[in-house]
């Protein structure tokens, strides 16, 4: 191709001034984006992929600066251009979509008005026809009833809808380059597919170039022409996306690819070559004993308290039927978990899976239904009093966010010891310490790190502390609430293997709550698919994932981005 690329990054180095001296976030990155091309930048956290895009937009924060290298965007040197010139470029020539769409929108302004602002600011519309153009832009991102949604506030829209509005704003001025920074992280898999399809369709139709920044190799491969893999601030590999999956050249790319859960592999396959013993751990057959946990007709209702309903109640003193009917987050579900079994609870956000797990862990009281744990109905014990009972020992949980679930003022050792101190047998100080060290060793946390506080530990280490804490009391049932959702893919691979090994050694049951079918496939014996508070499908993992009976399960499976292998 002889035409100069739209965006040409040459030898870019970005440095941040910190207390510990200068930190190089991006080092000698070369990258070009041609017209009409979609380039994926893939890497784990700290790889410098976002910083690169911020440098392109010149929105680095104050401590960061471009040390060397140049960024040329359609002939303009962005790195050295005056701020006013860059401001002209931003929005009109290149624009950006951020990770959290709700945070990117002003919460107290109607989305239509926010769209108008951009149109008027960049002289795409006059105040007179702005409204019509804004509605048209909303229609282009496939928002149903755009004239109505024009008046919606961000909190009235779902995450996927908000991201569509953000895309509409980003594309309002017909930019030449769109940078999408993790645009679908935090969105459901079906929404992710819809949003990504929309981005690709719109950019293709307009002949735009785009950069997709993501941690998900599968997503990048499915939607990008070329993929750039970054590690610790450096580009390690650049290749067309088909080629990168067929023949990854760099060791890091291979490691990333291995660690990505996908169909047709076992848990052990996720680990780097050589680290795993040959062959998979055989799935243990369930012994036909009485199930450990039986859930019968479990229901959780929340009263609807709409402002409109309340006002109507105040003034007319009568309730409309729809106000009176409470919202059912969990709508009469029944299932069992056998001893030593791993059951996956799968569904998209709002399907009631978290509410269900909270009720089983007895942090939340069910409205009706029974939770039989080892034959005893624990659903009737109020959640408030459950903490001090002996049954508490037997049901533990590993939380989604390892950072949020550790007390910032407790050291790792203190965090692991907490359940033992509260519920365990009285131990001498030395016995307690040796028990904590034993648990740390069990989860592969170096005992030297036990004195550290959460902010001094990495994500994977924090996850291990959380797991050790859950294992401290020898529970019979552990609820895993998306335990790897906040972790990088290679750390996820290690943590999933750890969980599987722990189960094999300690023989407990897992209830694995997740939205990621690929992860569920690896870990679970049986799967329960939930939607809108109800169970849609249940069965053995292989059966459900290979021959799904319910239309919704098929939809979920189809939405997973498949790398072109």
């Amino acid at each position, binding site marked *: 191709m002889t035409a100069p690329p739209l965006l040409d990054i040459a030898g870019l180095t970005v440095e941040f001034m910190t207390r510990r001296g200068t930190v190089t976030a991006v080092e000698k990155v070369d990258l070009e984006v041609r017209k009409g091309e979609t380039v994926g930048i893939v890497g784990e956290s700290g790889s410098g992929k976002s910083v690169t895009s911020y440098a392109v937009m010149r929105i680095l924060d104050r401590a960061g600066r471009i040390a060397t290298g140049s960024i040329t965007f359609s002939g303009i040197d962005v790195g050295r251009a005056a701020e006013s010139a860059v401001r002209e470029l931003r929005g009109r020539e290149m624009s950006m979509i951020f990770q959290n769409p709700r945070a990117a929108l002003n919460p107290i302004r109607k989305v239509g008005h926010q769209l108008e602002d951009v149109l008027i600011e960049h002289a795409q519309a006059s105040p007179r026809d702005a409204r019509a153009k804004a509605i048209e832009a909303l229609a282009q991102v496939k928002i149903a009833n755009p004239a109505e949604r024009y008046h919606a506030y961000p909190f009235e829209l779902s995450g996927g809808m908000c991201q569509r509005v953000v895309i509409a704003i980003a594309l309002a001025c017909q930019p030449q380059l769109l940078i999408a920074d993790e645009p679908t992280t935090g969105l459901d898999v079906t929404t992710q597919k819809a949003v990504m399809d929309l981005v690709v369709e719109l950019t293709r139709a307009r002949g735009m170039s785009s950069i997709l920044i993501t941690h998900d190799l599968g997503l990048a491969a499915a939607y990008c022409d070329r993929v750039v893999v970054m590690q610790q601030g450096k580009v390690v590999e650049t290749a067309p996306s088909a080629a990168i999956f067929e023949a990854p050249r760099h060791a890091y790319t291979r490691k990333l690819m291995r660690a990505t859960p996908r169909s047709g592999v076992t848990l052990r396959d996720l680990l780097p070559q050589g680290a795993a013993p040959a062959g998979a751990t055989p799935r243990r057959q369930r012994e036909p004993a009485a199930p450990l946990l039986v859930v019968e007709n479990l229901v959780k209702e929340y009263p609807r308290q709409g402002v409109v309903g309340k006002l109507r109640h105040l003034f007319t003193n009568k309730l409309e039927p729809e106000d009176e009917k409470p919202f059912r987050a969990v709508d009469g579900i029944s299932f069992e978990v056998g001893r030593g079994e791993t059951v996956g609870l799968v569904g998209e956000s709002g399907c009631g899976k978290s509410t269900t797990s909270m009720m089983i862990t007895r942090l939340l009281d069910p409205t009706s239904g029974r939770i039989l744990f080892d034959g005893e109905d624990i659903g009737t014990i109020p959640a408030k009093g459950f903490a001090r009972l002996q049954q508490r020992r037997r049901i533990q949980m590993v939380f989604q966010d390892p950072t949020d679930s550790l007390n910032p003022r407790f050291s790792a050792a203190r965090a692991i010891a907490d359940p033992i101190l509260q519920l365990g047998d009285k131990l001498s100080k030395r016995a307690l310490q040796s028990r904590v060290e034993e648990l740390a060793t069990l989860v592969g946390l170096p005992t030297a790190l036990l004195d550290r506080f959460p902010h001094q530990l990495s994500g*994977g280490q924090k996850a291990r502390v959380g797991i050790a804490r859950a294992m401290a009391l020898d529970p019979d049932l552990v609820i895993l609430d998306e335990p790897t959702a906040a972790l990088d893919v*290679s750390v996820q691979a290690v943590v999933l293997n750890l969980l599987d090994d722990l189960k094999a050694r300690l*023989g407990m049951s897992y209830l694995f709550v997740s939205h990621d079918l690929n992860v569920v496939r690896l870990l679970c014996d049986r799967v329960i698919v939930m939607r809108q508070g109800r169970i849609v499908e249940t069965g053995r993992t292989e059966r459900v994932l290979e021959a799904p009976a319910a239309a919704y399960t098929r939809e979920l499976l189809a939405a997973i981005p498949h790398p072109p292998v």
Partner: protein
Amino acid sequence: MSQITEPGTLQPLPLHSGDVTADTDIARPPSPSLLAHARYVVAENPVTGLAFVLFVLIVAAALFGPSLVPYDPLASNTAAALQPPSAAHWFGTDQLGRDIFSRVVVATRLDLGIAVASVALVFVLGGLAGVAAGYFGGWTDRIVGRIADTIMAFPLFVLAMGIVAALGNTVTNIVIATAIINFPLYARVARAEANVRREAGFVQAARLSGNSEARIVLGHVLPNIMPIMVVQMSLTMGYAILNAAGLSFIGLGVRPPQPEWGIMVAEGAAFIVSGEWWIALFPGLALMLAVFCFNLLGDGVRDLVDPQRRT
């Protein structure tokens, strides 16, 4: 009983799943020590350093002042009345010939004592009430919230005057009055901070670990909001000093001849028109510096205790 309860029988898991080298992310190095961090905060913001120096001076004056001053703060000497500042009397003398420098320094202990006592009192009462309101919500929240609203509905200084007048004109009652008017500030800050942490993951985890609600509030939530409360304490300390001096100024609380900044300013005010400016000026300056110091210190303490600023 599974194998894990017998200590010593456990072997570490095989390398493939337990080895940390398999983690790609590397732990951050430990944070610098508190001292190193304090040095950094002071170096970055010299005004904070100044405030720390002032603070040390004020505390030293409160602790050792009475045994260091050149004159007895209560001894009157009519022969030397109303003398302007000189080498013998640095800050001059008042209408009874008492050395103003000695009186200003000795007064530090009383003023600081009132402020510290009232802030400690309101920290315990307001902090606990606020944390309980934020954590438990419901009726606790409503009651604490309405108490705070009621106090806020009064002009605070007038309320303090009323409380001292009603309870009796003593130093203890000044402490109580100052604590009461600061109550809403503490209760609201503590409530907001506790409310945010109410559903935090580590609180849920503490429930799973078998902590009772009371233990979660005191052992998990409260320690996490302490940094913010400490900043709040430093900021209100200056206000408490001002309030105590203000009450004394209008004749409530501390009585003459006891040296106290507010009374000294009140006594000196009458002499300004006749040209004896030093009687009111120096205690006023001491008051100003103390308030100034604690306000600046609040900013410094916030930088010091905020973990975000540590890395």
